[in-house]
């Protein structure tokens, strides 16, 4: 497959062109927090060169708060923006986050039920995944089947070689689009440089812990006192789940009065007691122990059972954001230790 080149000096022009056909999202900094924002005429691309965004990009397809429908005094229901004016393009998403889209898609567009709100945004989306030349010490994509230059979930894979990005189409959609973009082909030297950067980055990651048997390890650990120990310092603040690119749990609430209002869905978290609190008073996950176990089991056991993959892409955001330094890699190691 041909590999192309996007000159950084022409990047603004490139993105402007792209935004004629797409709603283009790029990393942006606001109030000291980096996240993906839709590009506007005055957008600055200041954060493209830095590390992964503080917030994961999942909210582009699955907003933190979203109106399912509004209703009026005649109980007429109407959905907003069910049709997008333009498909979404994301430029500069990291490989771990690109992969998270494929996991979320398996949940939201499952065999039994399709979530139209998700599908409407994701089905035509164009994902430019930017390889990580400088993985952080908290990155562990290589533990869970990923890598700093992985292409899963990407339509076009990018490598930052300094003056330019190498752009390699890695899906049918990406292939179609890239040929319409009138880009220069990459030279032998460019490719060599890309490869070198890739090798360097991969060597920067810590050696992965072997977790192919983690599902079985967890099966055996259900009743272990270890869960209490792991959960002991957790504050149940849920920062880990809100900043997780693959966490998809949500709540549905009505806002407004009976005569006028809306039904919304908002991100929710298994770390909260109310998440499973039943009206009659019972709660299957009454303490932090059960909730910690749920979070770990969902990611490393249940999803392996239902979709055949870990529900974790190794982005490390839960490690960075945890106020009590609870490190999911240490949890995994502990679990393996109990079993051995």
């Amino acid at each position, binding site marked *: 497959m041909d590999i192309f080149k996007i000159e950084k000096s022409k990047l603004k022009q490139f993105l402007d062109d792209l935004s004629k056909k797409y709603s283009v999202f790029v990393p942006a900094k606001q109030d000291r927090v980096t996240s993906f924002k839709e590009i506007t005429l005055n957008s600055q691309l200041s954060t493209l060169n830095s590390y992964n965004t503080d917030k994961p990009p999942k909210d582009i397809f699955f907003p933190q708060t979203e109106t*399912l429908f509004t209703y009026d005094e005649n109980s007429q229901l109407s959905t907003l923006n069910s049709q997008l004016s333009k498909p979404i393009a994301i430029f500069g998403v990291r490989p771990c986050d690109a992969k998270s889209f494929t996991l979320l898609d398996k949940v939201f567009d499952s065999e*039994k039920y399709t979530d139209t709100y998700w599908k409407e945004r994701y089905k035509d989306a164009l994902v430019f995944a930017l390889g990580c030349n400088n993985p952080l010490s908290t990155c562990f994509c290589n533990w869970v089947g990923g890598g700093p230059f992985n292409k899963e979930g990407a339509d076009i894979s990018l490598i930052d070689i300094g003056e330019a990005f190498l752009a390699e189409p890695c899906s049918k959609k990406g292939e179609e689009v890239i040929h319409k973009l009138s880009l220069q082909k990459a030279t032998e030297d460019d490719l060599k440089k890309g490869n070198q950067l890739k090798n360097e980055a991969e060597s920067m990651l810590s050696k992965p812990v072997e977790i192919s048997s983690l599902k079985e390890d967890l099966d055996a650990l259900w009743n272990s006192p270890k869960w209490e120990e792991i959960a002991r310092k957790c504050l149940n603040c849920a920062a880990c789940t809100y900043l997780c690119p693959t966490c998809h749990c949500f709540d549905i609430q009505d806002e407004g009065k009976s005569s006028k209002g809306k*039904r919304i869905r908002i991100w929710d978290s298994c770390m909260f007691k109310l998440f499973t*609190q039943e009206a009659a008073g019972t709660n299957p996950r009454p303490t932090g122990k059960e909730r910690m176990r749920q979070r770990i089991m969902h990611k490393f056991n249940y999803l392996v059972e*239902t979709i055949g993959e870990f529900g974790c892409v190794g982005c490390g955001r839960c490690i960075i954001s945890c106020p009590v330094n609870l490190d999911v890699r240490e949890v995994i190691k502990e679990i393996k230790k109990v079993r051995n």
Partner: protein
Amino acid sequence: MENVYMPIPVKVKKIMVESDDKTLRTFDIAFCNEKDRFDFMPGQFCQLSILGKGEAPFGIASSPSEKDALKFTINRVGNVTTALHYLEEGEVIGMRGPLGNWYPVDKFKGGSVVIIGGGFAFTTLRALIVYLLEHRKDYKDITVIYGARRPGLLLYRDELAEWEKRDDLQLHLTIDKEVPEWKKRVGFVPTVTKEVAPSPKNSWAVICGPPIMIKYTLPVLSELGFPQERTYTSLERRMKCGIGKCGRCNIGHKYVCSDGPVFSYAELQELPQEE
């Protein structure tokens, strides 16, 4: 693309106060638009919603053949159920469904079925009983054991009286403590089950009720020789989406909403034991 979160409009046709403490009401719910009508099977549930208050899941208590209206019996316990209890006949509410799986009535064919219920967890069991009676020739003996704390807490009392007169259904009603007006059986469901359950040979058991009842009845069924593969229950969990996306009603890797709510004990045995 069908939007699975959009409720359809339905009309409250009739409201019946079901229990003597008035905390249970049965609602007959009719489709406002014929095009929204759906088929379902006994054991499935719907999300009923009141705009501004929210949604909650309820098992369908009527059989698919009862075309006039769907039946729901609702315990007043939270925000949505309280709002539902304030409804008057004729009002329009929202409904999503049918959701979840159902009792495996096809598997039951040619066999005997014992249905064991306790308290107000009798709703989808009613749907099942009516369904089995409508297809009576497909099944051998049908035994129903139904217990409540006191007579006034038994659901569908007029219908129970009708069923008692039938000779193709063995109905055993029981209450926990003796009261003057009660001339029938007194005793807990597990004890009654021990006494009246049919032979486990080619039989299926369906059990629904408060956890304490289930806890003490399951060993009885197992002692009688009912294998876990042929003992079914219907579970409840806090739910929101009802379609396996919002992530809260799981037991292990199964979602009660979309993989259940009906499970055999053999299936549940495979899952983590989360209380």
